[in-house]
């Protein structure tokens, strides 16, 4: 048995994982009956169907010819995710302005980083977003950690 379509095989595995997780977690919720559906009824059935579909899809991974999955852009993934997470952490704790600089610098570092360019564009963006979101739309973000 050889996997001929990586994308089908692995998407099947992904669906099975989600399906089984749903069935497993939904066991904590009362199932009820058809006429009186409990909170566990719908997710359990969804999980069962998803698992079956997942199995069927992985099986096609051995039958059809796929193009392959290709490389993942690990570096961009890491930088962009970190940029987002730190922004979410920072905005309420140390303020809008530092959070903006953090997300812009980290995101830009995901690909051909040019320090001068990023510095200029981040200043422009911070001022623009401040004018638009805080002055214009009056979103209640603290600007810095002291207020």
């Amino acid at each position, binding site marked *: 048995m050889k996997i001929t379509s990586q*994308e*089908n095989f*692995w*998407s099947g595995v*992904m*669906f099975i994982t*989600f399906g089984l997780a*749903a069935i497993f*977690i*939904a066991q904590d*919720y*009362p199932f009820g*009956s*058809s*006429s*009186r*559906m*409990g*909170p566990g009824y*719908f*997710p359990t059935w*969804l999980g069962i169907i*998803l698992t079956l*579909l997942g199995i069927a*899809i992985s099986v*096609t991974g051995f039958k059809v010819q796929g*193009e392959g999955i*290709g*490389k*993942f*852009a690990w570096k*961009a*993934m890491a930088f*962009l*995710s970190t*940029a*987002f*997470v730190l*922004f*979410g952490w920072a*905005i*309420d704790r140390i303020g809008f302005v530092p959070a*903006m600089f953090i*997300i*812009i610098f980290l*995101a*830009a570092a*995901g*690909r*051909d980083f*040019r320090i001068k*360019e*990023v510095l200029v*564009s981040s200043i422009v*963006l911070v001022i623009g*977003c401040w004018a638009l*979101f805080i002055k214009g*739309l009056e*979103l*209640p973000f603290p600007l810095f950690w002291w207020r």
Partner: protein
Amino acid sequence: MEMSLFDNLALGFQTAVSLQNLAYCFIGVFIGTLVGVLPGIGPLAAIAMLLPATFTLPPVGALIMLAGIYYGTQYGGSTTAILVNLPGESASVVTCMDGYQMAKNGRAGPALAIAAVGSFFAGTVCTMLIAVAGPPLAEIALKFGAPEYFSLMAMGLIASAVLASGSMLKAIAMIFLGLLFGIVGTDVNSGMSRFTFGASGLADGLSFVVVAMGLFGFGEILANLEKGQDAKGRDLLTKKIEHLYPTWQDIKVSAGSIVRGTSIGAFFGTLPGAGPTISAFSSYALEKKMAKNPEQFGKGAIQGVAGPESANNAAAQCAFIPTLTLGIPGSGTMALMLGALTIQGIAPGPQVMTQRPDLFWGLIASMWIGNALLVILNLPLIGLWVKLLSVPYRLLFPAITVFMAIGVYSVNNLDLDIYMTVFFGLMGYLFLKLKCEPAPLILAFVLGPLMEENLRRALLISRGDPTVFITRPISATFLALTVLLLVIMLAPSFRKKRDLAYQEPAAS
């Protein structure tokens, strides 16, 4: 009180042409086009990004602006498709084919103009169609019970899977995954928290903006970074665009294409689950078949621009029909619109038309005005859009990232929302890698709680007897159509045709 079509439209125009609402419409169309021109942000991400900006507006204004953004992005997408061979969003992939070839032959002006005219014609027809078909449909919908709603949603979901590109089995699995994501949060009947993993921020369920922004915004940026988008496809047309107006011959040749494209778009748009992309692809295939000069297709045939552009706009517009009359969104974008309504404190559904006629008819009138504005706005501003495209992606994407982050955060001021966006962003990228189409998932995500609730009610009435779905005639009809869709889809000959429809423009 029965109101005539004329009274309704008059009320609509009265609402829409107030200075304030005209301004919202203009801002929406302008921003929409701007975002549509930028590669890598589709209509869905654009609306999700700009949704918070409409929170403080009155409901009519907010909806008018969002609708403006919506067809603005559609149109902006075609502008870049023609000028630089870069589809701004998926439905304009088709336009690249002949539009860009026309531009290379020095006929960018006529290509843009015919796209504008076609879109405007389609927009006008569909505005009328909504005005005529809306009220009777809403009337029928008021008679729907739980089984009918359940079957209708099932039909919409299956349609979205059948008409998505790629493997249908995967698309169906994506539906079930979307339904699962949809029921995260507190169960309305038992008050029990489901799949929240103890996080209080998930008690109200996953936010739509989070899922949409993750799958379509964040995931898309990753895909673009991976491709290195700066390098390819950016052969800017530096030639000055001279003759803007199409010749008489152009108009004569494209008139039929525009009408056919509009009909195709109106059909697919009204069907919940289908959308602009499949309409544009089908229209291209049809035009190629109908044309006297099929060998010209792919080398700059004006019908190849006129048909798909009209179809794409007609579908975008007619998608409002199921959304507004049945309260069932036909696409992810429409789901966002409904979300905006809910945020404004209006329960979507057939009753909107009678309870808030100013909102319903105002929106319809503003669609037409928005289309007119697009024609007026786009042609003179083409120079500006082209300039915008010369901004390299490495400068653009940090800005897009920032807007996304602020957009997500401003909905609930919750840092958890940002972390969840990262999760869905990485999921979106994985889906892309595994060639799983995310559009059916997002639709199912919205319909998840509705489907569960209607299933529960239907089975409660029937005392647990599932035959209730096939013994009630309207519900049975929807289910029969669903089965028919699946059967047609499984038929090898149709399957080949569908794959061809999606491949043809890409291949040639």
